[in-house]
């Protein structure tokens, strides 16, 4: 889909333009599900488990049912449905055992939120508290309690995943390339370390909310603040054993998602309440606190990396083990595991590689998709590792990276050949370095150090990411011409803030040769009206839906040209068009306007031809394959987006307090469709990454209670937390199959930010931090070589905060 059209010949793509949804949003008119009220609507509330693991001895709902205004009460025992995206392991409500703090055990629907809340308090649950399995590495031990003893009986997507029955392993992905042991035998250095990051919350500003009406004839309508209407419908229908035609999913404006609204969430629970209440619509809106424990989070990762390096600084072999803490249910975590495994080394060529990536069940709130889909987490490890390795071998971290980056002719871990058109990590790295004057201090910086007494440090981090999606992922766009010659596009890629609809509108306008104002992308999504899209995830929307939009525009033009050739009595090949009309090239005065043809052309005598002009664009990812289960070899990547962050910080070496002075980021986006949207994604993602780097993270006690499920103790960045200076840069290496050469960049800005901070801290103070987040206290401890804060699930057991640990060979804590 890449056309070699010089940028100066593009009219809309690549040009600045406002967002198509701006007016609705700045006026407060945009309707979100949280704003919606239906006639006769009931309000739901959920009873949640106070324990991480417990047997449900008895649930008494009598008092709740007797409360006036309560219309439905439900417990797990009454529900025979099981849900699961890839591994079907989750009941709508816990049945005999609760598997995590905050898990739903009962729910009610009542006339008002207040009555619903009162009813919840009246539900009495008797628990027998069981010993939870909380630490992912403990969960792998032989005698560990099993979170899912029946794992062997669950159905799962066999082409992609490998659960291990009788263990807590929900999936084991393997990548095998070359001969790692042989490479290690020849290496000059072998360096092994471990990196951890905690679970974090997406924090969409609109919490999860759904309204469901389940009519007595089994026709169901779901209004949800969700990212993926079709996947939601598909999973819902599979669980409820309903024909897809019976279920309609409507997604209006969505107040942020970041992956947390990608699959299926509260909708099935709300649906059963509606059915129990005789088909009255029921609404459930999660509280902010429920976002942290009732709804899923991002998985915790423990990442162990062992690298063999030759005397010239080339990596010769790398052994990588990822322990992904799924929490109580597999959800997206198994696919995060798979996608991370095949990208595990970062944008570097590793000739001999061995990856074992495990998804591990524990008794904690479960992990799901989150912007970056595992890549934020493991790039923390790999990009910190690059700097730590460079320090040990005595090479500059950037020089060490440059020696090892993927270049045209390199092969990825799965054996995919990198071409020039794949993009350039080197150009991104160079831009990031230049942006921060890497490797030296300017005079102003030296003066600043003198003035403040703080030490300035500079660090960089690289990254890559491909969409994590089935190899046959598909989408469609329907483009309809309106009576006045404007066009309206329907699609179910959702725009929950990332700006996709503005880009799609620009692409359609460009292809049709219409001004942007003539193109509308219908904002709400409706599975009864709009064509299929797999999911709005993975930074694949621009490529797949962009291509479908181009095809729809082509199809619409073909339709119009058909009509025009009849109306003008000529060959189609002799026709051309401008924004208003189709005309005969050699007789431009012979023309018919789009308006004349929009809903069918009528000759002067009233005879009609053509009918309404519609374009259909269908697109499916091409040339991708499943990974071989034994070796991980195959072609999983629709595209690779490369990027790099450079960061300048200043640190108080005594206290660990630090300020972020500048972040300079570069991304190879293929082709910029909307500069301000790219910049918005770049800065927004960078700040979200900075949040997880600086302060965010779940903290548990030893019984598995989540201790910080609110904004009081789970801070996210405010405006005051911004770096003093931000520079956003793009490289444009066109993607051959991307629309106008574009590739996705929605998730990428978040990746690598934490590592850039960690690397800058190391560069300035020597602090060798291997766990996130990096609070002032963590930096203080690292500088002083004292043990890290024992958050006990996320503390890195070795390597962390010790200046030069024994890095060759066996480490006692490795076991």
């Amino acid at each position, binding site marked *: 889909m890449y056309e070699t059209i010089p940028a100066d010949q593009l009219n809309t793509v690549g040009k600045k333009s406002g967002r198509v949804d701006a007016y609705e*949003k700045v006026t407060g008119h945009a309707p979100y599900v949280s704003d919606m009220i239906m006639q006769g609507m009931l309000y739901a509330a959920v009873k949640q488990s106070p324990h991480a693991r417990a047997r449900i001895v008895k649930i008494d709902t009598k008092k709740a049912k007797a409360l006036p205004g309560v219309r439905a009460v439900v417990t797990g025992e009454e529900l025979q449905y099981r849900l699961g995206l890839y591994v079907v392991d989750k009941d709508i409500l816990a049945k005999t055992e609760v598997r995590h703090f905050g898990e739903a055990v009962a729910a009610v629907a009542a006339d008002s939120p207040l009555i619903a809340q009162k009813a919840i308090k009246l539900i009495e649950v008797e628990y027998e508290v069981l010993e939870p399995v909380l630490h992912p590495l403990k969960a792998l031990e032989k005698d560990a309690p099993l979170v899912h003893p029946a794992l062997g009986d669950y159905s799962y997507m066999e082409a992609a995943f490998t659960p291990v029955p009788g263990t807590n392993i929900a999936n084991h992905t393997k990548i095998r390339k070359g001969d790692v042991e042989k490479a290690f035998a020849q290496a000059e250095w072998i360096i092994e370390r471990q990196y951890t990051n905690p679970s974090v919350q997406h924090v969409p500003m609109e919490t999860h909310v759904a309204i469901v009406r389940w009519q007595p004839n089994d026709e169901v309508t779901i209004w949800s603040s969700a990212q993926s209407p079709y996947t939601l419908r598909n999973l819902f229908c599979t669980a409820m054993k309903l024909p897809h035609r019976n279920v309609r999913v409507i997604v209006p404006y969505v107040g942020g998602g970041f992956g947390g609204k990608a699959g299926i969430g509260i909708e099935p629970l709300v649906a059963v309440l509606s059915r129990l209440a005789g088909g009255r619509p029921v609404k459930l809106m999660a509280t902010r606190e429920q976002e942290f424990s009732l709804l899923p989070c991002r998985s915790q990762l423990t990442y162990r990396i062992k690298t063999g390096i030759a005397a010239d600084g080339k990596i010769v072999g790398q052994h990588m083990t990822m322990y992904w803490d799924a929490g109580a249910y597999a959800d997206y975590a198994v696919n995060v595991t798979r996608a991370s495994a095949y990208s595990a080394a970062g944008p570097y060529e590793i000739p001999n590689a061995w990856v074992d990536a495990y998804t591990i069940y524990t008794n904690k709130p479960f992990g799901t998709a989150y912007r970056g889909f595992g890549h934020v987490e493991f790039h923390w490890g790999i990009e910190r590792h690059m700097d730590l390795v460079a320090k040990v071998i005595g090479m500059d971290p950037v020089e060490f990276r440059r020696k090892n980056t993927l270049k045209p002719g390199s092969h990825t871990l799965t054996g995919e050949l990198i071409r020039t058109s794949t993009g350039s990590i080197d150009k991104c790295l160079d831009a990031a370095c230049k942006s921060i004057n890497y490797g030296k201090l300017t005079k102003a910086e030296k003066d600043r150090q003198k003035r403040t007494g703080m030490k300035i440090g500079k660090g960089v981090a690289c990254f890559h990411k491909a969409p994590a999606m089935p190899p046959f992922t598909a989408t469609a766009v329907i483009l309809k011409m309106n009576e006045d010659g404007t066009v309206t596009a329907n699609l179910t890629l959702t725009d929950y803030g990332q700006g996709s609809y503005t880009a799609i509108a620009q692409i359609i306008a460009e292809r049709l040769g219409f001004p942007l104002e003539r193109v509308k992308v219908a904002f709400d999504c409706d599975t009864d009206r709009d064509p299929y899209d797999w999911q709005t995830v993975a930074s694949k929307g621009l490529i797949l839906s962009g291509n479908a939009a181009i095809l729809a525009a082509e199809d619409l033009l073909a339709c119009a040209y058909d009509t025009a050739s009849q109306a003008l009595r000529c060959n189609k090949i002799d026709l051309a068009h401008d924004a208003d009309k189709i005309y005969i090239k050699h007789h431009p005065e012979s023309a018919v306007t789009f308006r004349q043809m929009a809903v069918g052309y009528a000759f002067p005598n009233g005879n009609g031809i053509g009918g309404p002009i519609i374009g259909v664009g269908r697109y499916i990812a091409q040339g991708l394959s499943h990974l071989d289960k034994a070796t991980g070899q195959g072609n999983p990547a629709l595209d690779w987006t490369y990027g790099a962050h450079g960061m300048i910080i200043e640190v108080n070496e005594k206290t660990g307090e630090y300020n972020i002075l500048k972040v300079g980021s570069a991304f190879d986006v293929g082709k910029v469709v909307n500069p301000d949207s790219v910049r918005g994604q770049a800065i927004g993602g960078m700040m979200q990454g900075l949040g997880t780097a600086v302060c965010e993270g779940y903290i548990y006690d030893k019984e598995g209670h989540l201790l910080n499920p609110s904004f009081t103790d789970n801070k996210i960045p405010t405006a005051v937390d*911004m770096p003093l200076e931000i520079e956003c840069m793009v490289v444009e290496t066109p993607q051959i199959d991307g629309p106008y050469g574009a590739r996705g960049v929605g998730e990428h800005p978040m990746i690598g930010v934490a590592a850039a901070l960690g690397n800058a801290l190391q560069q300035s103070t020597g602090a060798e931090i291997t766990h996130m987040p990096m609070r002032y206290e963590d930096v203080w401890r690292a500088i002083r070589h004292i043990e890290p804060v024992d958050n006990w699930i996320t503390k890195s057991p070795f390597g962390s905060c010790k200046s030069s640990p024994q890095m060759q060979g066996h480490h006692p804590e490795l076991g």
Partner: protein
Amino acid sequence: MKITVTINGQKYQRDVQESQTLLGFLRADVGLTGTKGGCGAGECGACTVIMNGEAVNSCLVLAVEADGATLQTIEGETVKGKLSPVQDAFARHHAVQCGFCTPGMIMTVKDLLARNPKPSRDEVIHGIEGNFCRCTGYQQIIEAVLDATGQLKESDKEGLKYV
């Protein structure tokens, strides 16, 4: 309890539950859903409205406390369908992504500009400290405010750099 409130210049009389918040009153009792709820605890600022000339978190104000008060909400920001300068700048600068924090953010900015018509960049940053935005990373919001107040430098308008 019966209360009378002036919202965006219009008088509203409603009988409200005494435990109803001002946020709930605006959204459920009056039907003005432009004001959003993001946390219920005064942390996120999504529910910011201007009450008697002061920005407040409407999730932590009782509706009954607003009896006799004058309120401004996002719905009053547009005059005859025309965007206010702040709204217009937000739209032009992509200071909006998911849009959920936007109404509260604009109310906070409106209040800031009422107190300080030409805030410096640093004053804008501190002025919007009480409003979380998870999407934009704040930069384009700050640029929008500086532009709306005629302070955005040409060099700041460059934005994305092509290398």
